[in-house]
């Protein structure tokens, strides 16, 4: 599958990109799997995801937990805990 990834705040700064399209292998089934796969793509990704518990995700603009399935997702975003309001 092909999916668009979006990055925000210091996740974006560490990776050095605001967005990209990726094609993870079939074995990558969940958000947690995707984080692990991304971390292996380079130092900047490893740095962004070095503490996976801190990075949050959203699938198609709705909050998603690490065990959420990514099949069929059009857009997955990764970001730090939110500080709005």
């Amino acid at each position, binding site marked *: 599958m092909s999916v668009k990834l*979006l990055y*925000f*705040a*210091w996740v974006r700064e560490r990776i050095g990109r605001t967005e990209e399209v990726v094609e993870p292998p079939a074995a990558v089934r969940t958000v947690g799997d995707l984080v692990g796969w991304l971390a292996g793509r380079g130092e900047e990704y490893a740095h962004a995801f070095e503490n996976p518990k801190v990075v949050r995700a*959203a699938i198609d*603009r*709705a*909050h998603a937990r690490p065990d959420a399935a990514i099949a069929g997702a059009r857009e997955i*975003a990764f*970001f*730090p*805990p*939110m*500080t*709005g*309001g």
Partner: protein
Amino acid sequence: MTIRLQREDFDAGAEAAKIARGRTDIGAVVTFAGICRDHEGGEGVTALTLEHYPGMAEEEIGRHVAEAEKRWPLLGVTVIHRYGRLVPGDNIVLVVTASAHREAAFAAAEFLMDYLKTRAPFWKQEERPQGKAWVDAKRSDDAAAGRWEKPRERGAAE
């Protein structure tokens, strides 16, 4: 419900007046404005930049407002959240709630602010004399949002 994301400033008084205009069933209007301060943790802040996730921010705020309308008898809700670079004294966020009686208006306004602080996709970066730094999410904000979670039913299996 009115939900707006914008760079520009808002007029809290005008928005509060708008929500009740022409209606005589509203007995309570609560207005909350969040404002950029010049200090955080004892240190000076010269500017605050708010990054946001366009699309998700409006949707997520819409979900919070829909939840508030389910829990309380509200007759109107307005949420305006700014983004971009702000300086101390600038408005950041506005929540206006209207109801027949004050209990719902107060509770819904507090609920919406607690959820905006923890679940709306915005990220603040502070400018200080020493440089820029991303603001860390506060545990106290998570605890505040946690207060609104529905209590577990008695006798439910653990």
